[in-house]
């Protein structure tokens, strides 16, 4: 049996590579679309922070009365730009890093919003009982939510690509 490159398309490794290429191709478009949406939300948040006002639609709210709207808008804007800029050569490690950092930026905002919700749901109201009642506890998790919180589940796909990246590295090293 002659020697063949592990990623040669005529071998088993090659088949895996083709499969991975397909996955990276899907990821490339997924994050480009997600990037456009994130960028859009960032622009809306920035505009509302500068001009004032409130948009409430379904489970989502963007209001200038919330703290740090301008700051959050800027972060979302850059996160969106990072996703979009990772489109070219998506499987390259540096582009993957950009995609992951964009997701991390969303996780930071969304994660702290969730932490704030959890911490806010435990104590009772001012001048009231020490702890919240069961109904109020549950009620504090009911929306509307900020855009980053709604975008958070979609950004979790990045974890799959980190895993895929690790797998690709193992195959190449083998």
């Amino acid at each position: 049996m002659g020697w063949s490159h592990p990623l040669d398309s005529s071998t088993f490794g090659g088949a895996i590579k083709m499969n991975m290429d397909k996955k990276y191709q899907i990821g490339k478009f997924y994050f480009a679309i997600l990037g456009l949406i994130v960028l859009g939300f960032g622009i809306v948040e920035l505009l509302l922070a500068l001009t004032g006002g409130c948009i409430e639609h379904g489970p989502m709210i963007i209001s200038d009365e919330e703290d740090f709207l301008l700051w959050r808008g800027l972060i979302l804007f850059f996160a969106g730009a990072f996703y979009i800029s990772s489109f070219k050569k998506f499987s390259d490690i540096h582009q993957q890093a950009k995609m992951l950092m964009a997701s991390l930026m969303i996780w930071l905002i969304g994660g702290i919003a969730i932490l704030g919700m959890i911490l806010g749901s435990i104590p009772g109201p001012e001048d009231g009982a020490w702890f919240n009642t069961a109904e109020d506890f549950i009620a504090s998790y009911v929306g509307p939510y900020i855009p980053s919180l709604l975008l958070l589940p979609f950004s979790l796909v990045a974890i799959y690509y980190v895993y895929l990246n690790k797998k690709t590295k193992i195959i190449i090293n083998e």
Partner: protein
Amino acid sequence: MVLSVDERWDLIDKISKQTVTFGEYRHTLKDAIAEITVKPLTGIPIALAVLYGFWAFFGAVAGFFTDGFFVKLFGGTEGFTGWISWLGEQFPDKSGWLFYTLVGDPKVFAADYAGDICFEAGGVLTSGLFVAIGVVLPAIFAFYLFLIILEDSGYLPRLAVLIDTVLHKIGLHGFAVVPMILGLGCNVPAVAATRNLETKKERFMMMTLLAIFIPCGAQIGVMLEVIPEYVGWVMLYLFLGFFIFGFILNKIIPGRSPEMLLDVPPYRMPTVRNVSRKLWSRMRGFLTIAVPFVLLGVLLVNVLYLLGVIEWLANSFEPLLTGWFGVPKETVTPLITAFMRKDLAVAQLGAIEMSVAQLITSVVLVSLYFPCVATFAMIIKEGMQDRVKGVITFLIGSLLILLAVVFVWGGLIRWILPLLGVQ
């Protein structure tokens, strides 16, 4: 046995063949992330997100403990007499000086009093304890927890590299970010951290700017309680001042600002064991320094008040306070307290009746006007390294800068706020 040169080289070859593995190094995801966090184009947006996380985490955690539980514990709630009211009821002589000093102003304990008893009682064992334990402690806990995670993950040195170019414009280098961020927790370790800076010029500038423009975590914690909606603007104004006066100081102070050479460690996952140990060590250090100063500060102010010193000072400084800074003369009390504890001073400001613009100006003044006594002592201690003559020159220089900043930057905000629509 003596080996010839060729034999030695052969031996080296054999050893290296057995011990060294040669191959192509492939960039890992960790390497790529490390790279993009120090490149300005990608690093600055990431830094923005990290600092947002820092700030929002600080607000959420500190608010949870203070508003959720400590306000109730000290001020009381449904079916529970808080510590302050209980002490007021139990204390024997309500008209004596001891009551005023330890428990607070008797009018706050009247049945029909509608104000915020936690901040407004003013006694050593009431508001003093509330500020130290109920407000400052949760704020410091949240601050140090996040800071330690950033330190242990390896992000802080990258932030230093990233901000190096900006800080060079004001005669500092990237390492200055460490005392800057530490100062947002407590200025005392921040002043100690200026030892990282190489030249006398850098150390003098950093200590002066820290003492004037960087509010400590305790003060930010109280600011979030008293003026939550304006904290961002106050911080922005102070940071702007930091860079503008830093730029001016860099031009007028002789000395050099060398380039930075920094070995950046790889990213690592912080361990619970290390984080908890460091957190405990810093919290303990803070508690032993801060709590006695808070209580001493309240005691001193109450004694000065009883002796009529505060009223005399308020009347003497009235033209300056009302004329130039546009704040009420009652601001004198918090300004005196600020020398002991700035957090306590901000809490006292919350109890004075004034407009929003006056409140913001007063908070800025408290931040600018003088470092707290613990920071002041630390500055003298650090300055001593340059011998006594050096300390005197250092202090006179710092005080002159301080006076100029208070008058210019403290007075300017009075005219800026109406332009922004804040009355």
